[in-house]
């Protein structure tokens, strides 16, 4: 009997230990977020809903639906499409303004210069005296639902863990759907948004010229009213499209690795070198999302099971850095962010042929060499690599 009891106790202890170990593992290492360029939902919504939302993301808007009067594209997917809807493209947007020696001053009408208009008479152009000019490449939105579910404190902790001379700047920006309450910015080249609903409403207005309840005021052309050309009553979208865009992005999988290339010796060596050189100080490999059920976006969104407690591999820190590339533009972060841009998340970078925030760099090597300022020590480590090692590191990048 005693022997039996001892066996039972040992068995219970073993089960308990296994459970404890399991819990410990699952707490410390969350499962990877689903990844794929496959047009499939990550589970946040059904595939049917995902397809419906993707259709709206791909839908070409018309003037009768509110397009313009000034705009950049007719559909979200015009800029977010390669290799699947929601990803990137070669398309850039144009920004301009003026630096008065102390502060950046917006170009009349805002730093964004819309490339298209529904009437030639209101075409925007860069006006004289606006010597700060830059292009911005279209960003990937795949996997952004996971990024949204990252705790602001996690981003701040990443910043605090970086060497002082390379410390990324964490900024807080308004969440439009939460009465402009502040949250850690993470979306856009300047981290100008913290929530995907805010991001969607902003892009709908600024890229397509369609107003919505969160962004009800039409843009201008170089600061002049376009009301005479605007025949649709504001808000042109009742908010449904904005919600659909956000729902689509929340339901996308993260950009996947090229697993065949990643398995090669060169890519694995490059993977090692990526850390040894110090690239991963800012191009952070692993970030975990908050547990399901957590209220984020200042109460406007609850982390769902499909997005909660997942590990993502963005190879980015979602912080602003000055790596010597400008771009001289200030958006939501204040004047201190003038010459800073968000670390480019490198997941999916193999689909890009134009690199850096402005798309001005065409090779991996030159993109690395363009990093300066805060990144100088890391780049010097790269410069000291052998040709073979550089090739291995670039092979690794091409597997992302």
């Amino acid at each position, binding site marked *: 009997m005693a022997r039996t009891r001892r066996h039972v106790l040992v068995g219970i202890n073993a089960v308990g230990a*296994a*459970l404890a170990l*399991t*819990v410990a*593992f*699952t707490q410390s290492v969350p499962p990877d977020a689903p990844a794929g360029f496959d047009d499939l939902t990550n589970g946040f919504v059904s595939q049917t809903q995902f397809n419906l939302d993707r259709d709206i993301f791909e839908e070409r808007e018309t003037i009768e639906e509110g397009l313009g009067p000034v705009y950049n594209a007719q559909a979200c997917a015009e800029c977010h499409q390669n290799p699947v809807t929601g990803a990137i493209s070669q398309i850039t947007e144009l920004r301009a303004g*003026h*630096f*008065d020696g102390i502060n950046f*001053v917006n*170009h*009349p009408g*805002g730093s964004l210069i819309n490339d298209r208009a529904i009437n030639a008479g209101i075409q925007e152009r860069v006006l004289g*005296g606006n*010597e*700060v*000019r830059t292009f911005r490449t279209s960003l990937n939105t795949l996997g952004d639902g996971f990024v949204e579910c990252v705790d*602001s*404190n996690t981003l*701040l902790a990443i910043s605090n863990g970086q060497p002082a001379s390379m410390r990324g700047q964490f*900024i*807080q920006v*308004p969440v439009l759907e939460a009465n*402009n*309450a502040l949250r850690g910015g993470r979306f856009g080249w300047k981290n100008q*948004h913290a929530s995907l609903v805010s991001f969607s409403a*902003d892009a709908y*207005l*600024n890229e397509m010229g369609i107003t919505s309840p969160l962004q009800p005021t039409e843009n201008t052309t170089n600061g002049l009213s376009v009301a005479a050309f605007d025949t649709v009553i504001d808000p042109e979208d009742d908010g449904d499209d904005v919600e659909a865009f956000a729902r689509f992005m929340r339901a996308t999988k993260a950009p996947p690795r090229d697993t065949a290339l990643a398995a090669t010796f060169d890519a694995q060596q490059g993977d090692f070198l990526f850390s040894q050189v110090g690239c991963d100080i800012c191009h952070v490999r692993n970030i975990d999302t908050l*547990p399901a*059920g*957590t*209220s*984020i976006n200042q*109460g406007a969104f*609850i982390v*769902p099971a499909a997005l*909660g407690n997942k590990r993502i591999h963005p190879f980015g820190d979602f912080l602003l850095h*000055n790596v*010597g*590339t*400008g*771009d001289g533009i200030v*958006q*939501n972060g204040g*004047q*201190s*962010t003038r*010459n*800073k841009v968000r670390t480019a998340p490198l997941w999916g970078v193999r689909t890009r042929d134009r690199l850096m925030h*402005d798309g*001005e760099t065409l090779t991996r*090597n030159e993109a690395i*060499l*363009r990093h*300066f300022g805060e990144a*100088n020590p890391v780049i*010097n480590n790269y410069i000291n690599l052998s*040709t073979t090692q550089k090739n291995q590191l*670039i092979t690794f990048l091409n597997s992302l």
Partner: protein
Amino acid sequence: MRDVRRPLGAAALGVACCLGCATERPPSGPREAEPALVQSSRSEPAPFRPVPPAAAGDARACLTRIFADVVVADPSRGRWFLDGDFNGDGSVDLAVAARPTAAGLDALNDPLANWIVEDPRQPRSPSTAVASSDALLAVIHGYGPDGWRNPEARQTYVLKNSGGSTMRAVPTSEAVAPVPGYERVGHVIRETLDGSSGILYWNGARYVWTAGEGIRLTVPPSVSEGGHRARR
């Protein structure tokens, strides 16, 4: 590691299912505690800090440090080196007229070279390959208070068809038509190329050459961002 984790993850999933699919519908749970408002410091270039002016020997030594024997200095162009804050980051840079060595041409054009080759007169050059006859200007960006003298200063642009005989560094403010309240940091290089005078300057992404004596700016209307609701 991954092989071990997967079965444990599966076990955890099984336990979760046995406990009644607790994660299927997110409960009303904790709330993300936004950090206290974070104050940030300005990220402007440090005030320009001059370093001892470059001598010919310094310029040659700096070229050797970056290029080894891939290029050599080219004193035949008269004023062949100068210093200044060409990229406007507050640290002194060095520009040296150079030409490729016969043995170094392949290394100079190596796709994994440690410098960026550009042609400032060609916004989109069909080729950035350097030929043996090309006149080059190597611009070594300074790093920190010691500028180009800092051994850690390695970022280098090799500019094709640059480095004219009359090149000199002038404060950017002198190259820009006077505008009240307007101040530009750093220096530009004023030079004559193929009989045409112009200015070589850093535009934030690359070096650009523009003909004429200066960059003319006008005062823009004072338009500031009204709050930070829109990113426009």
